[in-house]
């Protein structure tokens, strides 16, 4: 036996509360693997958001703080400034990061805060029951855009990665997806880079992960993967949006 793919050390044994097929679990696992591979499990402090991923602290076997909705980058800033030699990351959904917490993420990036953000974009509010998110696609049906997102009244979805990439303080920003194994492998590489940027003290890093919400999209898990690929990727192109230092 020369290879084993199993639960990473940085994950607890706890079963997740996510709906069947929700790709949060894949992203959790990748974060845990990156922590293990960098050997930083005992030096890492994570910040959980408000939203579906609020229970992240139940699944990752590391020190964690839970933050108020949208405030994770501020909380992470507080931790990192006190413990500059630890690895500090936030894990945030699109409502948390791109709506209520827009100010916090922009300014954390602008300061070049040496933290890493895992931004999970599934184009909808999951926890509260499928309302329109700042990243909901034009025409997308949600419980607060019943006729489909009308850009006349509800405006346009925000491309957070591109927006943050304009900031000098942002060192590494990448948008990835988890809709098939090949992309999962790429996503993991991006996460590894982002955490490495922080480990080397190079400034703000973020990986935007396009993710599914089968329950609130009203699709089977496998259909949700297809929907992500067909609908989301054209609006949110997968790319290493910024790699200022060519890490």
């Amino acid at each position: 036996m020369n290879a084993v793919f199993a639960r990473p050390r940085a994950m607890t044994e706890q079963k997740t509360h996510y709906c069947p097929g929700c790709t949060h679990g894949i992203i959790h696992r990748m974060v845990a693997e990156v922590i293990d591979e960098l050997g930083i499990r005992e030096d890492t402090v994570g910040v959980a958001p408000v939203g579906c991923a609020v229970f992240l602290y139940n699944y990752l076997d590391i020190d964690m703080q839970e933050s108020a909705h949208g405030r994770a980058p501020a909380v992470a800033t507080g931790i990192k400034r006190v413990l500059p030699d630890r690895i500090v990351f936030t894990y945030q959904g699109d409502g948390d990061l791109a709506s209520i917490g827009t100010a916090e993420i922009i300014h954390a990036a602008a300061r070049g805060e040496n933290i890493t953000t895992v931004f999970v974009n599934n184009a909808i509010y999951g926890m509260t029951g499928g309302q329109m998110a700042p990243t909901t696609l034009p025409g997308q049906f949600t419980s607060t855009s019943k006729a489909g997102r009308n850009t006349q009244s509800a405006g346009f979805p925000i491309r957070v990665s591109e927006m943050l990439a304009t900031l000098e303080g942002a060192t590494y920003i990448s948008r990835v997806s988890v809709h098939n194994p090949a992309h999962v492998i790429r996503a993991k590489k991006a996460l590894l880079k982002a955490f490495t940027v922080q480990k080397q003290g190079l400034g703000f890093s973020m990986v935007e992960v396009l993710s599914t919400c089968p329950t609130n999209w009203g699709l089977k898990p496998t259909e949700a993967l297809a929907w992500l690929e067909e609908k989301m990727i054209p609006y949110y192109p997968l790319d290493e949006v910024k790699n200022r230092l060519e890490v």
Partner: protein
Amino acid sequence: MAKTGWVIFAEEQCKGCELCINACPKKLIFLTERLNQSGYPVVGATETDKCTGCAMCYLMCPDLAIKVERWTVP
């Protein structure tokens, strides 16, 4: 050099989402009729001798329900 592998499903973790079924290049995984204690139908594998241990199923499983071991056979 051929690769051979072994997949173990932690049935109590499985939510029957079928993402692994989708991912398996050899189409060895299928949804069984067995329900676990949470009430989800769980997956199983057939013709396991064909498994190469590629771990695509592991990569796509959101619930850490899959463990893959892989050997390289000279």
